[in-house]
């Protein structure tokens, strides 16, 4: 009894200290002129250090404090409550940041409508407005083109690179764009797509190549003249130019997963086929591809989800103008430019509905695997 009392005291003390330190530390962060005497660079670095320490240490301190409280409780309560110490913090954050707002978004899409309009007003707007129809068309085009092309290029490259010596080096080059942000990729490709009027030297490699190659076509009389193309600013070619950037970013992912899957195909199968006189091409189509069907599907859906949510790439390059907008870009514009939160919520719900089939498949897989139960 006495020992228990000391434990409780100790737990309370630890919790108190953790709370005080975090409170004080966070107070430091919210004072803008904390290090006013120092040079701006030094003060910025000091602030960064405090912020990082508080964020990183704080989360551990909270768990530690929670554990001391739970272990100080009477035996049975400890056992019952302990699992919740482990899972509740994560569930709480997910609840606050995903589940509660998701419910709120769905509700707001029906309630946040102009005076005197019905609950479905936002949805009827979304599916009748001509600009929205172009946006949906763009999303559908992205969904039809980008995942397929990324998977095919990734698969072909994975299949080819499997057979050369410098495999991992070659893969790294294709893989590298995965580390680049959409904004960074947008900058990179602005220089690829750069446009100068005809007659001036082109600084973008694509137009430079186009003018050079087009010169031959003119000489041979196939086309009458060649003009540099403003790839990002001419409808509808700009949509495809943007998709190319996305494909450039996604192929690395497809390649890595498919390459691992190809290596998982039993060599007995391919070697036996080779002995029976099958060509490499036949082996690839008849044995490798059927064996990695599962991986192909996963890669396809993963890229499809990424494509559905595509935002930064378009927002930074064309801002969604010139008929290039998609749902996520329009949603951002509705939130910040037009302050029309009800309509923004409606667009978010449409995005959610689009991924529900994939969610169902995931959950069905989960049930089949039976979570450790």
């Amino acid at each position, binding site marked *: 009894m006495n020992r228990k009392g000391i434990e409780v005291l100790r737990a309370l003390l630890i919790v108190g200290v953790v709370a005080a330190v975090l409170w004080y530390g966070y107070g430091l962060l*919210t004072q803008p002129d904390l290090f006013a005497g120092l040079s701006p660079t030094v003060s*910025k*670095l000091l602030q*960064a250090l405090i912020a*990082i320490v508080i*964020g*990183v240490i704080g*989360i551990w301190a909270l*768990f530690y404090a929670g554990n001391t409280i739970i272990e100080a409780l009477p035996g049975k309560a400890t056992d019952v409550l*302990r*699992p*919740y110490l*482990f*899972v509740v*913090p*994560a*569930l709480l*954050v*997910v609840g*606050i*940041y995903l*589940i509660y*707002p*998701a419910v709120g978004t769905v509700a707001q899409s029906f309630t946040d409508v102009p005076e005197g309009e019905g609950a479905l007003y936002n949805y009827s707007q979304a599916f009748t407005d001509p600009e929205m129809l172009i946006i949906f068309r763009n999303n559908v085009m992205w969904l039809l083109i980008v995942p397929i092309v990324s998977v095919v290029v990734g698969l072909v490259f994975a299949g080819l690179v499997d*057979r*050369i010596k410098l495999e991992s080096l070659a893969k790294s*080059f294709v893989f*590298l*764009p995965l*580390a*680049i*942000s*959409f*904004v*960074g990729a947008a*900058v990179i*490709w602005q220089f690829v797509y750069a446009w100068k009027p005809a007659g001036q030297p*082109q*600084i*973008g*490699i694509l137009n430079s190549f186009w003018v050079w190659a087009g010169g031959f076509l003119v000489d041979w009389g196939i086309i009458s003249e060649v003009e540099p193309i403003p790839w990002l600013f001419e409808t509808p070619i700009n949509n495809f130019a943007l998709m190319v950037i996305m494909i450039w970013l996604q192929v*690395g*992912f497809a390649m890595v*997963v498919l390459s*691992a899957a190809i290596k998982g195909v039993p060599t007995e199968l391919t*070697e*036996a086929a*080779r002995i029976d006189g099958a060509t*490499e091409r036949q082996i690839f189509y008849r044995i490798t591809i059927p064996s990695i069907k599962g*991986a192909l599907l*996963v890669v396809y859906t993963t890229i499809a989800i990424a494509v559905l949510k595509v935002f930064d790439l378009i927002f930074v390059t064309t801002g969604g103008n010139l008929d290039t907008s998609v749902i996520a870009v329009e949603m951002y514009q509705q*939130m910040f430019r037009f302050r029309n939160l009800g309509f923004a919520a409606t667009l978010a719900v449409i*995005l*959610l509905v689009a*991924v529900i089939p994939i969610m169902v498949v995931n*959950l069905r897989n*989960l049930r089949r695997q039976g*979570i*450790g*139960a």
Partner: protein
Amino acid sequence: MTVVADKETAKEVTRSRRNRRGPNESNERVSWFVRISVVVIVIMWTIPTLGLFVNSFRPSSESSSTGWWTSLFNPFQTDWTIDNYVNVLTSGGMFDAFINSLIVTIPATVIPITLAAFAAYGFAWMRFKGRSLLFAIIVGLLVVPLQIALVPLLQIYQSTSLTGSFIGIWLAHTGFGLPLAVFLLYGFISQLPQDIFESAYIDGASPFTAFTKLVLPLSVPALASFAIFQFLWVWNDFLVAAVFLGTSSDVGVLTIELASIVGSRGEAFHLLTAAAFVSMVVPLIVFLSLQRYFVRGLLAGSVKG
């Protein structure tokens, strides 16, 4: 039986054939086509980044009048310069943005990993009410677009002045990253052998100690995989930062600053190339040095999902 035997013979045959004639014949036959295709794809995938990289070392008068490849072909007639980098780090907001990116990214990586590791351990090794339902919710959330959360959260943030605060964006990134984190770490932690826990408990360890002293050290590969994911995702994120953190130079991160240079067109445009590389250097280093873990995480996260 016969099939197995056939396979064995087949292997034998290949082996002996290989020994006799060196490397596999049919491979030798296609290899020029294969090699050229691989090289073509590698070049196509490298040229865009290479172009920006070369331009970032050319004076703006040159990079806006001639293509970057002209400098590559005439390296001695080019005024190679690092002025772009010096300018972008001293005059623009890129330095502050770089620090802000660090402030945002490091806790926004550590906090979700910590929460997720605890939760994954709880889901994998503890019995409690609602376990499978709660885990199913996490898995269901794996593919939910984060856009679904933006409108209500924005309203909450604006009314509580969390907008523009670092803790606000740490928690936002934590919430959006957690489902994947829990799922990935669960996959790993649930596969740990049961014996190690039993012997730890016999030695009198509490579950908390078993978690910090046993599970975490053993899970380093999985933790590293997710850490790289989350680090790259947060560092490269534009949307969450734009919505919850805003664009002021006190808190604006690299992607925001870079996007504002893209938008400005006129005065800062010559800094764009260097600015882009400043924003990319950390993820590229992380990525190249820890590629192995990243690939492992990619495979665990996608093949199962």
